[in-house]
């Protein structure tokens, strides 16, 4: 073998975007055909021989001492195979949520399980009702948690500076802003199917964290991790709510161990609302001031995070903007309801609504263009460019009312435009690995345990090796959602793509180099290198080698090429994500109804993996923000503590008739490598929407959602 056949190793690097055939194009999802035909199997769809259906029994009141739990009648239900208390008699259930689980049943059919659950008799001594902020803060209120009703105080900035700033401001506002608790509302509820035979188990879990679920379920099943396999082929949404096994996963394991039969335990919809997670609510009292030149001089705020028994999330103020002075205190105010969980950009939509409202109020207070006022107080040029882009697309230049609110036409309708910006961190984390395997028959697999929440991860796991070898997308099979594959990462904080795509790229690159080494050894003549394109491979240099990909693989004989690689930081974006959105609304000032006419978003995201999935995800963020802004709110009955919004009739989300014209602009000036970005586009929409309502008709909405009654009240039309 001549010296120039030696394998010259290079570090993996993304090709120039202009040379890419798959990545950064609009690709169909590889699992689309399975999803549109109903063949895609979700955890809830698993049907195993001899499987039982399990069901939880939840208290409806937030707090009570459970004096007695009688499962005897449940056991009499035909088909019921198990009914057991989850807590001992005398236990005090402390809050509405996963603490509400007091018993569980298992039965041969879903209906029998439902009957058995309903037949469990409870004797309760109800406790105090503490489901609202005011109930919790009332003098003499009972304690929600052992740490009291208020906790996790934080303080940023300096009070004296803030007081001085307020005295030096030319325009001041002093207002209260409120955001409700929002639900993730994953269409597939929490839960799993546990298939356990006493020695090993497969758990079909609806989870955002396949790899870490393995250890967790192993513990729950008293098995070593290598005897437990987690499978999540498809999942019906996560949005941050589905990481751990949860109470439901623990109970499924308990039943499986006891019965040694497969157990199907998915929450029902009311239970999902009660214990499946939520975005914390927020109550903020704010003072802010600006000087006549359009400078944000100061912000002072007292913020309550309303995360139930949890801490809630809040990133601080003035959030993305720059202020000369600030004094911001935030704290948790606990209520007897389940803990908030991570939800797509935890804390950020709340901070965005407060800060973007403040910016808007100050701008109009100064009779300034709110777009201009924002730019003056945003340091990073990317936001200036993003705001200009969305302003152009929404038609701001031709809009009549730029420095004061408009007025309705004779028919009571008013049209307005509002703006807001977003931020999140770019990049990924270590830990993900991928195996790329080339088989002698020409088939290629790309394998990583990572789950696909609907983001399109499965598609780029296939596309990256296909790009590397000059193959069509369908020539590579992506194997994901299985803990027996090389580890993935949990899908939280938009880190999945920045973590997994670099590992896939590194593995694909490694597999190509290994393949080239094998080919070079087999080819007579001088080989300088190889070109992989259009389903063929040819050598450069003296040798005359030009074969199809399949023929090249056949040269492997019986031994495939398989390379596993881990995360490579040089292949991911770093730093910050930006983003801006603009909303155009029509407000019916007679009825208070708000119609969103158009939403525009621009988002930076490094190297796009799949432009079609990326656009879908940006639009998905916009729609979730619209839904949050107009419709969504968790409501408890204040007297008895019942959760009133425990179904999709009372907890409303946006449907087809709420959807406006949507424009999602991918920022191609961002030339960084790959990163996820899903959190960012969910942040600013409701803020821009609120500002658009004000711009239309002068109704300033300081509480989310912007329901017709609130619009009319803001117009002074309701007492």
């Amino acid at each position: 073998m001549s010296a120039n056949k030696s394998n010259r190793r290079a570090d993996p690097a993304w090709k120039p975007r202009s040379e890419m055939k798959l990545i950064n194009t609009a690709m169909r999802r590889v699992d689309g055909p399975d999803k549109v035909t109903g063949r895609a199997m979700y955890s809830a769809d698993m049907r195993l021989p001899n499987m039982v259906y399990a069901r939880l029994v939840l208290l409806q009141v937030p707090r009570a001492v459970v004096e007695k739990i009688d499962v005897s009648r449940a056991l009499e239900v035909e088909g019921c195979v198990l009914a057991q208390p989850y807590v001992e008699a005398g236990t005090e259930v402390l809050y509405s949520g996963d603490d509400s689980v007091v018993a569980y049943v298992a039965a041969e059919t879903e209906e029998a399980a439902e009957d058995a659950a309903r037949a469990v008799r409870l004797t309760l001594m109800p406790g105090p009702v503490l489901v609202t902020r005011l109930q919790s803060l009332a003098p003499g209120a009972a304690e929600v948690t052992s740490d009291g009703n208020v906790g996790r105080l934080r303080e940023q900035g300096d009070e004296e500076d803030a007081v001085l700033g307020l005295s030096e401001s030319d325009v001041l506002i002093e207002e209260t802003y409120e955001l409700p608790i929002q639900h993730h509302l994953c269409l597939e509820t929490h839960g799993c199917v546990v298939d356990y035979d006493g020695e090993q188990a497969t758990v079909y879990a609806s989870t955002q964290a396949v790899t870490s679920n393995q250890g967790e379920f192993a513990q729950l099943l008293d098995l070593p991790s290598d005897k437990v396999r987690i499978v999540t082929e498809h999942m019906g949404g996560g949005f941050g709510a589905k990481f751990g096994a949860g109470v439901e996963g623990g109970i499924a394991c308990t039943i499986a161990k006891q019965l040694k039969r497969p157990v199907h335990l998915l929450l029902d919809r009311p239970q999902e609302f009660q214990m499946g997670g939520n975005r914390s609510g927020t109550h903020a009292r704010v003072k802010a001031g600006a000087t006549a030149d359009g400078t944000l001089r100061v912000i002072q705020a007292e913020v309550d995070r309303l995360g139930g028994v949890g801490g809630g999330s809040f990133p601080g103020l003035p959030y993305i903007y720059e202020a000369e002075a600030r004094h911001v205190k935030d704290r948790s105010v606990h209520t007897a309801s389940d803990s908030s969980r991570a939800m797509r950009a935890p804390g950020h939509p709340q901070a965005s609504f407060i800060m973007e409202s403040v910016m808007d109020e100050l701008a109009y207070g100064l009779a300034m263009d709110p777009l201009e006022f924002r730019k003056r107080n945003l340091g990073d040029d990317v936001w200036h460019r993003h705001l200009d882009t969305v302003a152009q697309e929404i038609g701001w230049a031709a809009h009549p009312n730029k420095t004061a609110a408009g007025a309705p036409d004779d028919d009571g309708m008013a049209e307005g435009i509002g703006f807001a910006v977003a931020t999140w961190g770019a990049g990924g984390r270590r830990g993900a690995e991928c195996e790329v395997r080339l088989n002698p028959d020409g088939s290629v697999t790309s394998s990583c345990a990572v789950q696909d929440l609907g983001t399109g991860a499965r598609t780029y796991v296939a596309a990256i090796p296909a790009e590397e070898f000059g193959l069509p997308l369908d020539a590579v099979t992506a194997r994901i959602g299985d803990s027996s594959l090389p580890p993935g990462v949990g899908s939280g904080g938009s880190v999945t793509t920045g973590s997994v795509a670099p590992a896939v790229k590194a593995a694909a690159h490694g597999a190509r180099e290994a393949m080239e080494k094998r080919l070079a050894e087999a080819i007579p003549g001088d080989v300088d290198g190889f070109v992989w394109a259009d389903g063929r491979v040819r050598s450069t240099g003296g040798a005359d080698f030009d074969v199809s990909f399949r023929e090249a693989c056949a040269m492997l004989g019986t031994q495939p090429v398989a390379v596993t690689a881990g995360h490579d930081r040089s292949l991911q974006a770093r730093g910050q994500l930006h983003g801006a959105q603009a909303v155009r609304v029509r407000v019916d000032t007679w009825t208070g109804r708000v119609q969103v006419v158009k939403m525009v978003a621009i988002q930076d995201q490094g190297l796009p993996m799949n432009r079609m999935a990326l656009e879908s995800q940006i639009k998905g963020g916009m729609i979730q923000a619209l839904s949050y802004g107009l419709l969504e709110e968790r409501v408890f009955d204040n007297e008895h503590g019942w959760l009133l919004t425990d179904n999709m009739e009372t907890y409303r989300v946006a449907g087809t008739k709420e959807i406006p014209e949507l424009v999602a602009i991918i920022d191609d000036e961002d030339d960084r490598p790959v990163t996820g970005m899903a959190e960012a586009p969910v942040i600013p929409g409701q803020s821009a929407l609120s500002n658009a309502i004000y711009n239309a008709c002068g109704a300033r909405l300081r509480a989310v959602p912007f329901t017709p009654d609130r619009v009319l009240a803001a117009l002074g039309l309701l007492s």
Partner: protein
Amino acid sequence: MSKTPEPAARDEREADLSRRSFLKGAGGAAAGAAFVQGAQATQEAAVADPEAGVRILSGATEIEMSVNGEARKVTVEPRTTLLSVLRTRLEPALTGTKEVCDNGNCGACTVLVDGKPVYSCLQLAVTVQGRPVTTIEGFGKPDQLSAVQEAFCANDGLMCGFCTPGFVVATEAALAKHSNPDADTIRHELAGNLCRCGTYDGVFKAVAEASAVRRGGAK
């Protein structure tokens, strides 16, 4: 378990099927009764009222259904929903139809009965005897997609995919009704289906494209 009609039986005779929640909820442990016109067979004795042609079913009952063109026999209770039959009682189960709200709010369980879209969570299985049921599995296969399914893939009308079967079935029904729906008609026809990922824009484009393909026009 009572096999005798309750006094209210005659009043319920004409009851609308939307009373399913009453019937479903009223069933205690495997009890409950449904009042069905033209029921085919019962395992337990049925009390018949020959004058009215009404049969009263109670307990486990074997019924015959036509699902995706195939005759299927399945044992149900009167309160068993069509959704539950499809997902848990048929062998093999047809799990493409999804359960999301089980309350008639979201459309994820949409199937066709007599060619019309219905929420299968709001239909008692005993009421669809002798009426053709078409589920998502009845439209196309991954390697042989219907025009609607093809258009959903081409326009990214799905993300997590859990609402997708319901949207696809509702779209098939909408296009059977309107050969060239405008944007408002598309929104109206799909107003009974909810998506949480926010994939509506892709769905709208898919419906428009599928209708063009079905009319024989270019994409």
